[in-house]
């Protein structure tokens, strides 16, 4: 536990240092940039609320990746499954009239099931033909991108406003907590808790982790690898669908999906880094997502005040992921220091 936190902390430090180096190359002042970032993200109550709003979808997409890793799968399909979730939320939340209490629930559930549906082909191809999930999920991501773009630009486009889909109706929206944070964060965290219970407190979760940890032992114990893969993909798809829903039903002021998908783009990939920082535990992911949500929100201040392009935050995330890929990174450095 302590070592896990130390490793995550060190990887984050490495990412931040590397990001600073990239700023120096182009003549920006990293100290000023990071000061702007962290003050913007966590320096005021409004900043903290906004950072939590940014963290919300990442908590969910991190679950997608984490529940994959637990079954020894590299499910990087959260991106596409999340697009489907967002469009699902738009269909029920924007194009259907339902009573106020029921509307957000129905829209959220429909979004989640569309996410799971988009995860199914990857699961089936993996079980049936052994197609590696890295390739299949990326292909599905791109198909989802064009499919959802098509829907937003045609059937679900807001009349007179070509740049976006029809917004979620007021009856379908989650109540606002403050700034752009809505109550859907509670749903997302609760979903993470349910997945935690599923993984560590149920038979199916035990089977999933056994298949992930030790496929040989799992085979002797009579565990079904196919079932573990299927469950992992479906739970992951539900989580990603929820992430998509959170940006439509729970994110003012737009409450909708932009035609460029600009307001959801990369949230699935960001979830990979968040899951790894959170040590592939849904609850660890919550903490990591708050940190990373802060980077995303604070990045805008960095761009506005110091001129550093906010996309640098993604580069920092990449460095963190690479650092976390190196096992025993802490031990490695300790050994270096001793010798």
């Amino acid at each position: 536990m302590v070592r896990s936190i130390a490793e995550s902390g060190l990887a984050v430090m490495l990412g931040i240092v590397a990001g600073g180096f990239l700023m120096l190359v182009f003549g920006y002042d990293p100290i000023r940039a990071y000061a702007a970032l962290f003050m913007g993200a966590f320096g005021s109550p409004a900043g903290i609320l906004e950072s939590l709003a940014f963290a919300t979808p990442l908590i969910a997409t991190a679950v997608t990746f984490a529940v994959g890793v637990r079954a020894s799968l590299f499910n990087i399909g959260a991106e596409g499954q999340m697009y489907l979730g967002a469009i699902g939320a738009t269909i029920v939340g924007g194009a259907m009239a339902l009573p106020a209490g029921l509307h957000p629930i129905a829209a959220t559930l429909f979004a989640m099931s569309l996410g799971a549906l988009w995860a199914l082909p990857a699961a089936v191809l993996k079980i049936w033909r052994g197609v590696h999930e890295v390739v299949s999920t990326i292909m599905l991501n791109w198909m989802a991108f064009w499919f959802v773009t098509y829907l937003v630009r045609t059937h679900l486009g807001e009349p007179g406003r070509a740049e976006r889909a029809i917004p979620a109706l007021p009856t379908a929206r989650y109540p606002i907590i403050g700034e752009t944070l809505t109550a859907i964060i509670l749903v997302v965290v609760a979903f993470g808790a349910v997945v935690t219970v599923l993984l560590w407190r149920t038979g199916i979760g035990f089977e999933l982790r056994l298949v992930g940890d030790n496929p040989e032992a799992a085979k002797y114990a009579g565990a079904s690898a196919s079932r573990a893969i299927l469950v992992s993909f479906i739970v992951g798809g539900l989580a990603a669908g929820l992430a998509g829903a959170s940006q439509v039903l729970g994110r003012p002021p737009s409450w909708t999906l932009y035609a460029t998908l600009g307001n959801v783009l990369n949230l699935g990939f960001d979830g990979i880094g968040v899951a790894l920082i959170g040590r592939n535990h849904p609850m660890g992911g919550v903490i990591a997502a708050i940190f990373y949500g802060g980077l995303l929100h604070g990045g805008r201040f960095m761009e506005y005040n110091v001129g550093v392009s906010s996309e640098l935050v993604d580069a920092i995330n990449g460095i963190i992921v690479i650092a976390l890929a190196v096992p025993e990174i802490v031990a490695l450095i300790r050994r270096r220091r001793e010798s």
Partner: protein
Amino acid sequence: MTPLRRLHWYLIAIIVTAVLMLIISEAGLSVLQLIETGLLAMTPLALAAVGECLNEQAGTVNVGMEGIFLITAVLGVYWAEVFRSGLYGLLLGSATGALIGLVFGLICIYGKANQVIAGMGLNIFALGLGPYLLMSIWAFPGIHMFSRELMFEPVRFTVGGEYFSLSLVTVAAIMIAILAYLLLHRTLLGIRIKATGENPIAVDVAGVSVGRIRLMMCIIGAALAGLGGAFMPLGWFGGVVKEISAGRGFIALAAVVFAGLNPLLALVAAFVFGFSEGIAFTVVVSPGVKEIVPFYFVQMAPYAVTLLVLTAAIGGKRFPRALGKPYLRE
């Protein structure tokens, strides 16, 4: 392993291509133009796929080709502008790829990193670095168009009265695939590369450095991907956008899996996938078709074809036993 062991795949590729061409010419589209676009789309895929075949034969998996594509596309244009030459852009783009390969190799081979996670980290890194570089170098978000003179122009000649252009990079990609095949199957180094992927302990005992061979293949693989990345803006699109790689790094990965690490089959797969992208591009702009099939669905075609081909052809492949595992000396 004879070159003809998987003859049926070459034949299927040829027959399917011929039938498609027939349909396309019946529909009144220019076949020549289609092949032209298909070859352009094939080139980066083939370069990256052949490079990754070599890399995986030695036992290292790099799923970060998508990221290498993106970074070298942006920096290739940068180098081309600095040296006022498209050719320098291509070569230095490739060198940039080699440098990424070196760092990736050091991390995976000597840092014993999880290769899939490190490769995915590289992709995420590029996802941020690409737009950051676009903004920091040219102060314009997401896109940069460069001067026409910096294009690495293709060679033009006439076929049956129609103009046809072919990039020398495409020719180079085909030759590199053949050379890679010969390297693997006809040279001592090739035997060592395959042995490193199959049984690194034996290679080590024989006094050959496992790490050095793997690192070399990592660098070569990434250098080829880098050439492909720089080719996209400099030899094909004429501009660079932040989504320029558009999943092609993963399509190349699919080609590698399809090919079972055989560089020649990887070339065939790259042609099939590139051709489907060529069809997509051609169909999008043809009158009569664009009114019926929404452009968005045509855009999905390359990814769908990749997934279908991979699903149909995945059986019976054998991959090196030590693939993806760091070598630990006892």
